[in-house]
């Protein structure tokens, strides 16, 4: 078991407001962590700061990913080194097909690691298999990225991208919200397929529901930009029953 992500005393600002306030978190390979917390508590801010969004500025503290200081790496380098962010609100890019996009993404990563481009046939075989697993029809792949996709389709498409890119650390920001039960199972099976001894995931969610399919090793409660309590799946169940009040206003 090796250290994948370590966050030390992190403060992140958006504009003039401090949103993440003194966060500490350690994630090792093979682990699945869940973050739960009220709306506006800064969960997406944390996710975007890890991915490197320019509007989310690290004021102090440090994020270390596999021994690298993340702040020294560009957004694309972080991705190429294996950080994946599944967006809470996936972006639509009409005019750029899902297939072309995925191919460019995979080859960018290969190039970064000094590998040759993936052959068209290898790529297509892989894409076919994984899109089937995510229950995404072939015809969707020739459409623009997320263009006209329903909420659930967008989320499944995020997981497809994750599976294609084979990251080391996967941060999934509310990938379960807006999903029906069937889609939720599909997403969970995708995430479970990704889990192994070498990878790790950080799952941001509001519902214990998803965690019944993807059992986390740790559940953290996020409040005002910091983790206020850590437990296991039982903590998620308690939250489901009692809400956040009993923790935030004891």
């Amino acid at each position, binding site marked *: 078991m090796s250290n994948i992500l370590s966050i030390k005393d992190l403060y992140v600002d958006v504009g003039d407001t401090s949103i993440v306030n003194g966060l500490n978190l350690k994630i090792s390979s093979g682990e699945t962590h869940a973050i739960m917390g009220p709306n506006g508590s800064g969960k997406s801010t944390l996710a975007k700061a890890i991915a490197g969004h*320019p509007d989310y500025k690290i004021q102090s503290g440090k994020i270390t990913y596999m021994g690298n200081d993340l702040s020294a790496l560009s957004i*694309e380098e972080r*991705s190429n080194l294996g950080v994946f962010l599944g967006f809470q609100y996936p972006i639509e*890019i009409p005019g*750029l097909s899902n297939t072309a*996009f995925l191919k*460019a993404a995979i080859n960018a990563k290969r190039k970064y690691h000094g590998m040759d481009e993936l052959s068209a046939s290898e790529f297509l075989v892989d894409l076919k298999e994984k899109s089937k697993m995510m229950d995404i029809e072939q015809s969707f792949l020739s459409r623009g990225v997320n263009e006209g996709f329903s909420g659930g389709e967008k989320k499944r498409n995020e997981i497809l*991208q994750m599976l294609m890119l084979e990251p080391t650390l996967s941060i999934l920001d509310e990938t379960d919200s807006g999903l029906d039960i069937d889609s939720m199972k599909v997403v969970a099976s995708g995430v479970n397929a990704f889990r192994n001894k070498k990878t790790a995931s950080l799952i941001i969610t509001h519902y214990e529901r998803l965690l019944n399919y993807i059992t986390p090793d740790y559940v953290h409660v996020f409040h005002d930009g910091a983790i206020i309590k850590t437990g296991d799946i039982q903590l998620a169940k308690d939250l489901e029953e009692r809400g956040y009040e009993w923790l935030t206003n004891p």
Partner: protein
Amino acid sequence: MDGLQKFIENDSHEFPDWMNHSRESSLKKYKEVCPKHLKNATWKNTKLNEMLNDFFEKEFSVQQSTLDNIDLKSNLDNSLTIYFHAGVFFTKEEIPSYIKLLNHKYLEENQSIFGLEDRSERQSIPYLLNNIVSRDALMIDTAVNQNVERLIHIVYLPNQNGNVAPRLNINVSENSSIKIIEEHLQSKNSIINHCIDINCEATSSLEYYKVNHRQNDSYLISNLNLNQEEDTDVKIFNLDLGADSGSSLNHLKLNGENSNVACSTLFMPSDHRSSHQNVVIDHLSDKSSSSVNFRGVINDEATGSFFGKVRVAKERRGTSAFMQNKNLLLSDESKISTVPILEIYNDDTECSHSATSGSLDKEKLFYLKTRGINENDAKDFLIKSFIDELASQIKSRRLRDYVNEIIAGNYKV
């Protein structure tokens, strides 16, 4: 305007009397309308008159450049290619009966092409100017029921100090169809003044493409007038890469029931060039439909503008009008203005219009980068996808590829 006067006086070509007369009355009219027209939105940001004066003041011996080192090879296989250089149209092929080149041989019967009467657009700046300085005209008149299979490719060869003033007159006869692409190759220190009149008779169809390559230190005025009778279908696609000062005017008249027009333009000026796009659609009959789709990609210190107007008269029923203009600004210094206007005086019209301008979307860039794609490639993807949304609508696969290739060679991130 003394420059234009001087040009006419010094023109050594022997024109028939009616043509001399037409040129002079056009100049007179030009002087008359200029003060008013130059104030309107189309021309007010251009230095048209200064430019014309400077240009036509000079001696015209320089423009007789030779064709020796120009490769006359069409890059569109199987098309019938007609060239234009030093004021004349010519082709290496046998000219089919539906095409006629004037070749300076102005005939009495051609008079109407240059007539000023009865039609307000003929008294506009581009037409009057074209009447004064053009030397040759090309006419296409399809036969009834003729389906012209060969693509007509009209190529305006590169010029230096050129007065490039072609005049075209196209009639698509009843129940016939034709595809035409016009292409202005790169010129330098030139004035391009292009005027085309198109008439589509009942149940005819037309695909019309125009590519204006990047022009250097040149002025471009491009004018298209289209009239459509009933059950006609016209698709227009323009690609304009800009000139020092470039203006395109399109006036499309839907003059018969079930006449449909789709007019798309991609304008991409860079450096200090400009591209001003104007389109006016008149729904003059019931059940006519129009779709206008203009996209600008403005780079460096370039300027673009869109002015679009759709008019539907009070008594017209069952029309549909769609107008969209989207612009992408690629640098802090690039500029765009957009004015979409719907003048619709009845309720039985389905219409929509929208206009948006902005720089590359930051969130889209972020999304692409989180998938490992670097800044330049990400920008490239976004620009391409913006362009492709429009270019993918080009009906002919082969022309779509052709246009895409030209686009690809003409922008930098």
